[in-house]
């Protein structure tokens, strides 16, 4: 059974190779090859899942050793896969949601002449992401980690002819590289500390080293997680990443890749458990990001960017939970899975709306679309209810658990973290209701109005200006797009209940991550009630602002906070001034210095030798007399020197 693990990765990898090397011949069938191989991988995943379920809880770790990757004295990096409950969960999420999004893309990318290549990149992403979660050592994980970064780069910049897309892709890769640097340093630290970076020995010996070392490793891992999962301070790339095609945003920048940071932290539980101060930093990062993302999500008029803010915020919840230690690990992963369902569903819904609206992304130019797109409306609506945590839907179960766990951390920290999580829940309810109202309710603001970019500089221009500029004719998307949306909506409704009733998910993951209850100062019921109140407040404010009164098509100037939030709370401005401008000045002055100083010394030496010889040349004036003088002078000097030597 172990031998199947490699096939999980091999199937999409084969797809990527065939589609990218195959050339134009495959244009007609390429998308079906890609979808089929994604589905094959999902099928293998199901077979392995059934096998795992058939074993007892302590027998559920399978490993497969393929070959020795980098064999150098004392440094052993192998290509070995590990399939346990944690990676199995991810495998199913990645291949399942991945297959659905492949299917959706068949419709969404139908008119794109480079569709074959798009599917090649998607398959490449699946292979890299599976490698990431199946790796049995940190270096192989790093391989997958950068591999998904590459796939993300290629897909964000898929419409390369648009400068915005190319810039966004580069930015995503660069910011991620900063995080990757953290992972690289963490691996080096592990190697220096343990002499290995394979999961097994590192985790079993984590207790043998000092807390300081563990804290250093943990903080470097956190840096990596911040990059990949768009957590403060490395979150700035996610909003720009929405330049990519919408299925990409759904798969990579919502459901799977951006959650890799959470996977990394939960996987490295043994390291984090030994480094409480690092865990505190993790929770702070999570709490800050969940508020940051939520605030940004409130201000964006671009539907995809609003959802991107929301993704950031929801991953903030997961990171917060993961930072809580054994109290939160399981819930972090549970929220990750349910979030995978509803956020992918929301993005696909957004894509469907854009598909029907000439690729317009400005929500202020939507309105009243529920009549024209009933399936999209219902599936989006269910996703909406799930994300705000409406009782009974999946977000209710998973988010509630995280808020409880935050309070259970105890002490002042517990109150602060729990409070932040509650506040986040209220803001989530607000911005998601706003998205819902602007898009599907209210007046039909797109009537009699060609969809051109407004003059307002704060509002991003339309991300995909492929369409015509005539008045849109909203229509429902084809079956191939709606079926994945329906499946994901079903998952968003039932997932949470399925996982939580009888603590199924907890029992499944506990052997890998460990679990402890913690002692909450508040009862579970109190927390749930508080969450419900927050939710109601958020929805009510959004209704008051966007439901009762008509929405202006051009965004009002807004308060200082709104304007700052529209600009991602000025983080990009900071980056621009400090990093981009500063970097430009640095490189420019270095180029100048290299030319004038280092090359100058060399050229200066050459010039002075040349100048000296030019002056010496003048002595050779061609007059026999002057040569005679120098001869006599020289002879006189010699004689004088000889006499002097005699005298001494």
């Amino acid at each position: 059974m172990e031998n199947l693990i490699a096939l999980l990765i091999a199937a999409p990898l084969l797809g990527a190779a065939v589609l990218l090397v195959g050339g134009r011949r495959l244009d007609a069938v390429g998308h079906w090859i890609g979808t089929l191989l994604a589905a094959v991988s999902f099928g293998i995943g199901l077979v392995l899942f059934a096998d795992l379920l058939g074993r007892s809880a302590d027998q559920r770790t399978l490993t497969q050793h393929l070959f020795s990757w980098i064999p150098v004295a004392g440094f052993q990096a192998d290509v070995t896969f590990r399939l346990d409950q944690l990676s199995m969960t991810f495998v199913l999420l990645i291949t399942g949601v991945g297959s659905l999004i492949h299917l959706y893309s068949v419709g969404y990318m139908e008119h794109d002449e480079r569709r074959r290549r798009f599917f090649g990149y998607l398959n490449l992403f699946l292979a890299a992401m599976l490698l990431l979660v199946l790796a049995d050592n940190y270096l192989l994980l790093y391989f997958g980690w950068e591999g998904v970064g590459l796939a993300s780069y290629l897909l964000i910049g898929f419409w390369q002819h648009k400068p915005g897309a190319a810039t966004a892709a580069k930015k995503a890769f660069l910011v991620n590289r900063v995080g990757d640097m953290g992972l690289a340093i963490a691996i080096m630290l592990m190697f220096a500390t343990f002499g290995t970076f394979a999961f097994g020995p590192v985790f079993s010996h984590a207790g043998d080293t000092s807390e300081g070392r563990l804290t250093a490793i943990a903080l470097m891992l956190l840096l990596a997680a911040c990059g990949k999962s768009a957590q403060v301070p490395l979150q700035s790339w996610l909003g720009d990443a929405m330049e990519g095609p919408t299925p990409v945003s759904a798969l990579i920048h919502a459901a799977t890749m951006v959650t890799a940071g959470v996977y990394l932290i939960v996987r490295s539980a043994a390291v984090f458990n030994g480094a409480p101060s690092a865990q505190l930093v993790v929770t702070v990062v999570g709490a800050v990001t969940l508020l940051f993302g939520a605030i940004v999500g409130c201000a964006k008029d671009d539907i995809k960017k609003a959802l991107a803010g929301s993704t950031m915020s929801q991953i903030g919840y997961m990171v917060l939970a993961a930072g809580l230690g054994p109290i939160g690990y399981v819930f972090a992963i549970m929220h990750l899975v349910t979030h995978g369902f509803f956020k992918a569903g929301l993005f696909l819904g957004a894509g469907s709306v854009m598909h029907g609206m000439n690729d317009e992304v400005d929500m202020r130019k939507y309105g009243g679309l529920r009549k024209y797109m009933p399936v999209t409306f219902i599936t989006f609506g269910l996703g909406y209810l799930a994300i705000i945590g409406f009782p009974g839907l999946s977000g209710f179960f998973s988010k509630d658990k995280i808020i409880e766990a935050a309070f259970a951390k105890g002490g002042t920290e517990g109150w602060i973290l729990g409070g932040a999580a509650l506040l986040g829940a209220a803001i989530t309810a607000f911005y998601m209701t706003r998205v819902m109202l602007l898009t599907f309710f209210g007046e039909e603001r797109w009537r009699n109005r060609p969809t051109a970019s407004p003059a307002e500089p704060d509002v991003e221009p339309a991300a995909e200006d492929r369409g015509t500029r005539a008045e849109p004719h909203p229509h429902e998307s084809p079956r191939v797009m709606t079926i994945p949306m329906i499946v994901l909506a079903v998952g968003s409704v039932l997932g949470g209940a399925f996982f939580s009733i009888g603590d199924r998910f907890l029992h499944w993951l506990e052997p890998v991550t460990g679990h402890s209850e913690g002692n909450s100062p508040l009862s579970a019921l109190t927390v749930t009630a508080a969450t419900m109140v927050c939710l109601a407040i958020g929805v009510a404010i959004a209704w008051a602002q966007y439901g009762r009164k008509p929405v202006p098509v051009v965004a009002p100037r807004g308060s200082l906070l709104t304007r700052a939030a529209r600009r991602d709370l000025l983080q990009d401005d900071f980056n621009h001034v400090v990093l981009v401008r500063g970097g430009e000045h640095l490189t420019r002055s270095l180029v100048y210095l290299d030319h004038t100083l280092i090359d100058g010394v060399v050229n200066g030496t050459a010039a002075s030798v040349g100048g000296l010889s030019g002056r010496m040349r003048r002595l050779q004036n061609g007059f026999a007399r002057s040569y005679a003088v120098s001869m006599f002078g020289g002879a006189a000097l010699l004689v004088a020197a000889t006499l002097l030597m005699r005298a001494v």
Partner: protein
Amino acid sequence: MNPVNYLYLAALLFTIGATGVLIRRNAIVIFMCIELMLNACNLALVAFSRMHGNLDGQIIAFFTMVVAAAEVVVGLAIIVSLFRSRHSASVDDASLMKL
């Protein structure tokens, strides 16, 4: 007579020759001055030979004479051809072998 006086004379002749080489421009005169210096050397060599009581100095003097004779042949030939081409025997006119 004290042989040192011959050395004084040799030094005097050499100095006159050297001065001539430095200050005169006519190639023939310079040439004669060079001969004067060579002969001053010969005189000194012969004087040394006498002083030390061996023949080494006289032998070298003969060598010098042979070389001087050869030099005169080559040198005069150069001067003559120079005079033919430039109609002048001034060495300053022949300062083109520079740069």
